[in-house]
């Protein structure tokens, strides 16, 4: 450890592993350290099952759960958008070669106490039970507009310029009712609250296109999920970093980030000090440099059946838009199962999560839990959401934000690319990744 590095990365969560990979590929000498014995930090998949029970202070699981090491339970539930930023990062860095994926089978939205399939094309819109007959026609016209509109081509705007009109104005032009606006904004554009209504429509248009382009890639739903769980993602980027010369140390406590004149010069573990120009880390390594901006509640549910009313889907996402249950932020339900090698044969893992709004967060996720049917075992966690207090340019300590309640990785990637830009002064050059040798499909 007593060496000099360009950058030291602390924590092996997904964001830190992507950064570590990008820095190594860019020719930087990187030391990557985690205080835990395992990769992934908060974005790890916990295995074996006994470990999950221990983590939450529950008595050991009985024999009914099958073999413990067939389980890989995520701590943070997320899916990848098939055409989203993380998939682009995986492709451009070649990390996709370490992973295999499955399409998530169903995407549902909650309305009036029951769930319906999210309609995304004209055909599905017409068949959907979410809308009445006339509303369906209006929604179809809206979808056609979104599909055809190009931001920089006024001929496609049909007198509705998405760059100047707000989303609310666009909705009103099509005469969509509140209900349709609700599932469009939350289940297609994947907004967590309603602030987008008063911003220009262009961002929402992009988001709906991302949803439908993602859906077009593999069918069924726009979401992908990796075999063996999300914990495979940070590990893939860690390997990328390692094969480009990054040094890895797990199970290594960090005692101090050493500063000189307010600027980082090294990291101390016990008596050892590793020198460096920069530090990249998650909030848990620098409690004095982050501020708490909220809380997220997540409930892991082990079940021996799929979610009712989802046509026995082995993987599902359900979005409960805030207004449907009188809240300010959405509730998310996700389900994965033995078919993704994350649970023993016949078992399912559901996760219900949301941004905390009250003193009684467990009560807040009840509408989500009510959809699941009988749950064999429940693990509830409430975690603080931290953001860095500064941009790191003076201290050269670059801190990622905690993982938010969204069910996909779009915000995760934005944070990573922004940190990389701040740390290196440039955008990541994907052409530096060698994909030719030993990679016959290139």
């Amino acid at each position, binding site marked *: 450890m007593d060496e000099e590095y360009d950058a030291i990365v602390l924590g092996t969560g997904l964001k830190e592993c992507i950064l570590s990979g990008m820095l190594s590929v860019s020719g930087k000498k990187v030391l990557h350290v985690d205080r835990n014995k395992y990769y992934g930090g908060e974005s790890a998949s916990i295995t074996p099952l006994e470990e999950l029970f221990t983590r939450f202070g529950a008595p050991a699981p009985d024999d009914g759960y099958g073999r413990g090491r067939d389980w890989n339970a995520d701590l943070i539930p997320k899916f990848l958008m098939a055409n989203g930023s993380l998939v682009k990062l995986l492709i451009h860095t070649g990390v996709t070669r370490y992973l295999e994926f*499955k399409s998530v089978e169903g995407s549902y939205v909650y309305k009036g106490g029951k769930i319906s399939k999210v309609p995304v094309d004209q055909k599905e819109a017409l068949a959907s039970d979410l809308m009445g007959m006339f509303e369906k026609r209006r929604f179809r016209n809206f979808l056609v507009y979104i599909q055809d509109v190009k931001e920089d081509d006024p001929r496609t705007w049909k007198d509705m310029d998405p760059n100047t009109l707000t989303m609310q104005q666009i909705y009103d032009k099509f005469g969509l009712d509140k209900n349709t606006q609700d599932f469009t904004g939350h289940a297609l554009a994947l907004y967590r609250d309603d602030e987008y209504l008063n911003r220009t429509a262009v961002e929402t248009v992009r988001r709906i296109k991302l949803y439908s382009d993602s859906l077009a890639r593999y069918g069924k739903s726009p979401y992908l999920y990796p075999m063996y769980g999300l914990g495979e993602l940070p590990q893939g980027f*860690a390997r990328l970093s390692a094969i480009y010369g990054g040094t890895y140390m797990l199970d290594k406590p960090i005692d101090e980030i050493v500063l000189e004149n307010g600027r980082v010069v090294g990291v101390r573990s016990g008596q050892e000090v590793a020198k460096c120009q920069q530090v990249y880390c998650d909030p848990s390594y620098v409690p004095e440099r982050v501020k708490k901006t909220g809380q997220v509640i997540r409930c892991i549910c082990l079940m021996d059946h799929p979610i009712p009313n989802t046509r026995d889907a082995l993987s599902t996402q359900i979005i409960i838009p805030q207004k449907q249950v009188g809240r300010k932020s959405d509730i998310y339900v996700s389900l994965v199962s033995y078919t993704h090698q994350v649970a023993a044969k016949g078992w399912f893992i559901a996760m219900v999560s949301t941004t905390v709004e009250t003193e009684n967060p467990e009560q807040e996720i009840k509408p989500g839990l009510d959809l699941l049917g009988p749950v064999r075992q429940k693990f509830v966690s409430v975690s603080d959401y931290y953001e860095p207090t500064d941009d790191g340019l003076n201290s050269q300590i670059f801190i990622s934000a905690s993982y938010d309640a969204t069910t996909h990785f779009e915000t995760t990637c934005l944070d990573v690319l922004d940190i990389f830009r701040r740390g290196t002064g440039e955008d990541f050059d994907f052409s530096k990744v060698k994909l030719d040798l030993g990679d016959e499909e290139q």
Partner: protein
Amino acid sequence: MASVKIPEQKVILCGEYGVGKSSLFRRYTTNTFVTATDRQSTLGLDHFDRQYNVGGKEIRLQLWDTGGMERVASITSSYYKFAEAAILVFSLDNPASFHVLSQHLLDIVTYAENAKIFLCGNKSDLEGQSPQVTENDMEHFCEQCHNLISATYKTSCKTGQGVDEMFADIAQHLVESNRSRLELQSMDTESFKITPPDDVTEPSCLC
């Protein structure tokens, strides 16, 4: 990939830092040898494919190196996933690197239950110098682990002796054991690798 008709068989190298895993990897990829530990020469190299013909049947071995992650015992569990074979490598002139193999074996059976396991004593050019790991020690090890080891080899990356023979033999083992399994697998799962969207000429599904 759907476009590759010959199945790739992932083969991983396991063992202590400095026993010659990257040297084996370099022999396999470019048939060269460098004396000093020179990470530069394999920097960015992830895995390498080589095709073998076993009794008229084509098979593609895909050899993976650790990327140096074993130096402080930080290999990812992903490294083992989907492996069809694992080569336990030790140095014939370093008994410590041999005795620690049981730990590596445990990792393999934990994370890659179905992998066939092979034992490889490297640096055979140093044979005759002491201390040494003997044939007896190797046999004893195989007995202790209940015949989990499919075959044992001695190689020298310095001279190249035994290296090609080892990989050819491993290819043979895999062809034999996979004959029935490959057919089973093809109907098993519909998971897939992500491919860049532009050059997809046919559905990129592995099923």
